[in-house]
């Protein structure tokens, strides 16, 4: 057993406290809490004192963190500025073309005040199109996508065969030249054997294969007569001589030289070998960002054959199933709860603290509890989504029910309606717009929650697919999953909006 004691103490008294503490230490090194008597002027800190002290000293650490974050954020500014400039450039180009093509006599173009006229601000459809196309173009540019003409690509990493020469000097001062043939190959491609003429002399030529984005250490002397073990060392790369003390590599002033041989960077290391890093170009590694068409082919493949023995449709179906069941259950409980809260003081008083307390708790924070309570199968995840939808729907129904204008209720009473009739024909229809708004929010939250819940524990589901893919570094599958999640979430919201327009056409017109 281990016990930790937090002391509140002056510096002078601290030594005494340690002496006491040692005295209370039983021979095998354990501290027995009961026998420790802090000296005068020292107190064992309570939990709260410890907490508040630690909290107050947090500032220094956080200041460091904010510096790191700030540096990163500042380094992102040039990219942001460039992006904004592209947006503006597209806008001016588009406007110029448009004004050239259309007449200037419609009402909107006759308006002189457009800045600040919010009724004149609408989502510009061509801007949306250009923005999405540009996203894909940038994606293709940074990944060397085959969908783009190659002049739009950023410089690609070097692949193919190239060579450089090295000059070796033996312990007795004899020199010899030899060539290193480097073959840089794409990942996953069976490499061709490097074919080269070994040449002749004291140093023979070498061949090395490197996977793109990789690097290789060449032990050039394995086939040479001049060996490092005999005191031979490299004195020049491509005829460029250098002076480097191989025996004193720890001295910071004695930096190893580095040579750009055109297709790669060659650096002798302190053991005398040559480290070759082929030119990596400006593109993103597929591990970080695969090209769009790679993601698309992956999508086709997984849609056909599934991933890890589960079809894509099953992954997607399970996620949707959970969201829909969870949302329906949440709405089925939340809406009546909200009505009760909107219509009765007692119910409102009863449930307000519960709802207001539970609402800000993100469902994800409850995942560990839910797994302990309900296990990792469907019940647990659906319970989580039920909770996510419940509070949102309850609050929407509450504000919908209490938002009915009293004149409507009065009018219904004077027309002879009973309480139930007023609920059925006045309060419920009046609250539908609010409930639809709540349902849209709840659906969005549920969709976000289901993916996160599946990241933690599931056997099927889009989130699960992403987790598994991340373990195998299948970035293309992760990206595909993210795009599917986004598209489905967007589709759900569009459907809800459509339903809203159909079912509550009076929204905002009361």
């Amino acid at each position, binding site marked *: 057993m281990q016990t930790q004691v937090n002391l509140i103490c002056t510096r002078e008294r601290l030594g005494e406290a340690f002496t006491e503490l040692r005295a209370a230490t039983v021979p095998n090194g354990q501290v027995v809490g009961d026998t420790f008597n802090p000296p005068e002027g020292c107190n064992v800190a309570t939990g709260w004192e410890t907490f508040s002290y630690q909290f107050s000293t947090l500032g220094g650490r956080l200041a460091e963190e904010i510096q790191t974050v700030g540096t990163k954020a500042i380094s992102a500014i040039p990219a942001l500025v460039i992006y904004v400039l592209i947006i503006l450039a597209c806008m001016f180009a588009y406007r110029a073309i448009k004004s050239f093509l259309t007449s200037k006599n419609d009402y909107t173009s006759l308006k002189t005040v457009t800045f600040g006229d919010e009724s004149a601000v609408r989502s510009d459809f061509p801007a949306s199109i250009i923005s999405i196309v540009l996203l894909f173009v940038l994606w293709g540019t940074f990944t060397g996508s085959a969908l783009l003409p190659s002049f739009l690509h950023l410089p690609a990493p070097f692949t193919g065969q190239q060579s450089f020469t090295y000059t070796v000097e033996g312990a007795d001062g004899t020199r010899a030249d030899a060539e290193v043939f480097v073959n840089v190959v794409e990942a996953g491609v069976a490499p061709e054997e490097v074919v080269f003429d070994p040449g002749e002399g004291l140093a023979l030529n070498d061949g090395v294969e490197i996977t793109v984005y990789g690097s290789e250490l060449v032990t050039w002397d394995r086939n040479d007569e001049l060996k490092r073990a005999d005191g031979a060392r490299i004195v020049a790369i491509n005829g460029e001589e250098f002076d480097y003390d191989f025996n004193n590599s720890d001295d910071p002033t004695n930096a190893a030289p580095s040579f750009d041989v055109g297709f790669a960077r060659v650096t002798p290391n302190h053991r005398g070998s040559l480290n070759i890093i082929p030119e990596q170009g400006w593109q993103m590694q597929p591990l970080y960002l695969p090209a769009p068409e790679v993601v698309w082919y992956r999508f086709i493949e997984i849609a056909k054959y599934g991933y890890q023995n589960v079809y894509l449709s099953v992954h997607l179906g399970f996620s949707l199933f959970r969201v829909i069941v969870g949302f329906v259950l949440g709405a089925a409980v939340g809406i009546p709860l909200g009505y009760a809260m909107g219509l009765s003081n007692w119910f409102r008083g009863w449930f307000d603290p519960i709802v207001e307390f539970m609402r800000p708790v993100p469902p994800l924070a409850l995942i560990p509890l839910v797994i302990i309570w309900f296990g990792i199968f469907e019940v647990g995840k659906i319970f989580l989504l039920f909770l996510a939808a419940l509070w949102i729907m309850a609050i929407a129904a509450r504000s919908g029910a209490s938002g009915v204008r009293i004149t*409507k209720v*009065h009018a219904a009473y*004077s*027309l*002879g309606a009973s309480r139930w009739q007023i609920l059925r024909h006045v309060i419920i229809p*009046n609250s539908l717009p609010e409930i639809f708004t709540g349902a849209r929010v709840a659906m969005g939250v549920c969709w976000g929650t289901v993916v996160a819940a599946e990241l933690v524990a599931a056997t099927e589901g889009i989130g699960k697919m992403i987790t598994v893919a991340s373990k195998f570094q299948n970035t293309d599958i992760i990206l595909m999953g993210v795009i599917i999640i986004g598209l489905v979430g967007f589709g759900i919201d569009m459907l809800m909006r459509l339903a809203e327009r159909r079912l509550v*056409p*009076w929204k905002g017109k009361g």
Partner: protein
Amino acid sequence: MTGLSIDNLSMRFELPNGGHVQALEGVSLDLKAGELLSVLGPSGCGKTTLLNIVAGFLAQTGGKLMLNGHEITGPDAERGMVFQAGALFEWMSVRDNVSFGPRMAGKKKADYMGNVDHLLEIVGLQDFKEKMVYELSGGMQQRVALARCLANDPDVILMDEPLGALDALTREKMQSLVLKLWKETGKTIILITHSVEEALLLGERLIVMAPRPGRIHKEYRLPFADMGVGADLREVKKHPDYAPTREEILNMIWDMEEEIMGTAGEEA
């Protein structure tokens, strides 16, 4: 007896800070069946409180309210209400709004549909039956509200500034319509208004209320409503008694408003 009788009505309620408000005191009024009473007064004189008590939305703290021989205890279909705005159900069509009362009473469609269509014709909305109410203009919406109230066939119609939100021209047309409906249906109507002209033109009887406590200050019997039925209301305004009465009432209300402002100034 038929008609509405208000006897020594008072309304006093306590405020959270310990004070109290005497909203109404000693209000007595007898309204025969078929009479049209307009109620005027400065703001805060208890007009709306009076109407809410008659409608049954508020319980009085003193006095008695009788309609056709029985006491008024709560809202009921016998007392219809027309509000200034926002009381229509925008999730229903015009026809469904107007037939709301009979539908709630569980009447058969065949029994009420004829009357509903007839009323829509009277208020000039026969071509808008299937429209949703939010597609109509403000004046049309108030005509729907009138028709909805009449479709329920109440004994008394209570109007709380029903034309207050309309523009001047629409308002004039609607005043003629109210008179026409009143004459055709023979309903007892209590009309609360801020407009002295409207009160004069529509009220067969007119009471001016005074504030603090809310009470009846003066009562008039006027000939203009009868003259206005089926006639041009602008002609009625040329009657020799019209302008002097209007001035008298305006001055009365003006004095009361001044008094309120004066005391309010002292309190501040």
